[in-house]
């Protein structure tokens, strides 16, 4: 009995901590994005609200909290209200499997990163519901694009991880990190990393694959009709999804919580630090890409997944399989 109680308290504690982290992290990332984009664009970005504009996103969040929640007259009201929930809740659960240190992972599920992919797919159902329920043509177009894009890029995402799975013989996140003790998988699987990066950009709706919320075409895409906190939750979800996919990339290909320089500590305390550093590094690149490239057209986007990424990903699986068997044969 006390075991169950203990576990429930643990769940509530962890869950609250993660939700808190999600909020703070998203606020930080949005601030970072605004500063990074400003640097790229010859300007300063938010600097006047708080020290270096650090309170800017906090002000935005509080303001959004006090905004009116509009409920469009002709929408499907229940689904309209459910959509942010469906988008946001799975992303919180995705944090469960991130290994933060050698003995520090909340739940080390057998299916590992596949669990995250399945959860982010639920988010996409939420996005589709949001677009459909709004009864707005821009939103509908945005959600249609989002779903088509998500399912197209899901496949290269899965295929690119296959090489890693083959080499590590596991899908558990902790064991994947353990397998990178000598060399990171980015060294042995560079093509897979590239494909994973591209596909996760698309999965997170980031430029140049941001057609679901293409501002110059679809006004605000699937969340055109969402106001105030409901809109903020989509935003929160989007930035957290970027963080999660970057963290997965860091774990799969960049050695997770291991320190980049041998000899530096990477224990339960330093581990999370290294992981965060690597993750933010990837997030920075994501932002850099966004503010550099124009957007692809919807058909070009699909074609890029099916004609370029998937064939290369299959090739990568094939070559990895061949190399592994040859190594075994000659060894």
């Amino acid at each position: 009995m006390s075991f169950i109680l203990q576990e429930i308290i643990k769940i509530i504690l962890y869950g609250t901590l993660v939700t808190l982290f999600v909020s703070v992290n998203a606020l930080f990332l949005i601030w970072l994005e605004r500063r990074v984009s400003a640097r790229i664009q010859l300007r300063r970005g938010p600097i006047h609200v708080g020290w270096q504009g650090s309170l800017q996103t906090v002000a935005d969040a509080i303001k959004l909290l006090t905004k009116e929640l509009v409920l469009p007259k002709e929408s499907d009201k229940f689904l309209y209200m459910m959509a942010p929930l469906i988008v946001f809740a799975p992303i919180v659960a995705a944090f469960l499997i991130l290994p933060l240190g050698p003995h520090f992972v909340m739940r080390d599920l057998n299916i590992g990163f596949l669990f995250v992919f399945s959860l982010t797919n639920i988010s996409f159902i939420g996005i589709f519901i949001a677009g459909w329920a709004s009864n707005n043509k821009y939103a509908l177009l945005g959600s249609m694009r989002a779903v088509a894009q998500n399912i197209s890029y899901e496949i290269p995402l899965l295929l690119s991880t296959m090489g890693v799975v083959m080499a590590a013989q596991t899908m558990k996140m902790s064991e994947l990190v353990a397998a990178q003790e000598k060399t990171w998988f980015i060294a042995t699987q560079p093509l897979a990393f590239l494909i994973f990066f591209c596909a996760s950009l698309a999965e997170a709706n980031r430029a140049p694959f941001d057609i679901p919320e293409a501002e110059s075409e679809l006004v605000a895409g699937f969340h055109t009709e969402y106001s105030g906190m409901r809109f903020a939750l989509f935003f929160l979800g989007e930035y957290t999804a970027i963080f999660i996919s970057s963290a997965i990339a860091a774990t799969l290909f960049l050695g997770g919580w291991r320190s980049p320089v041998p000899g530096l500590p990477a224990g339960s305390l330093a581990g999370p630090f290294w992981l965060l550093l690597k993750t933010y590094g990837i997030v920075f690149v994501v932002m850099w890409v966004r503010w550099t490239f124009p957007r692809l057209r919807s058909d070009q986007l699909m074609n890029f997944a099916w004609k370029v990424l998937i064939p290369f990903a299959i090739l990568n699986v094939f070559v990895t399989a061949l190399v592994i068997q040859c190594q075994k044969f000659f060894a």
Partner: protein
Amino acid sequence: MSLLHDYSYVLGFLIIGAGFVIVNTLLPLLISPRSRGANAQNPYESGEVPIGGAWVQFDVNYYLFGLIFLAFDVEAAFLFPVLIVFKEFGFAAFYEVTLFLALLSLAILYAWKKGLFSWR
């Protein structure tokens, strides 16, 4: 038992995430002002009144992607268990995986040939 243990965490996290959303969408109802414009709840379409609703039959292109994805994703899910134990088997496994991948690639080639990727 362990599985149940693991997934109780997932359930718990989902509930907490949902709770966060619910609290955050109920709070504005208490503290936000209201606007009373005549068109406030009308659907937005660049400031104009929309012609017809948005719930229309949509271009079939997107659904075709859905179909081909379904085939692919299930196949990929089949592949993962094989790959975990891949190292333990010899070249026989390699040939089988190659055959499997080749069959998968045929699906893309078929769709390509059928013109799924050329929208014009």
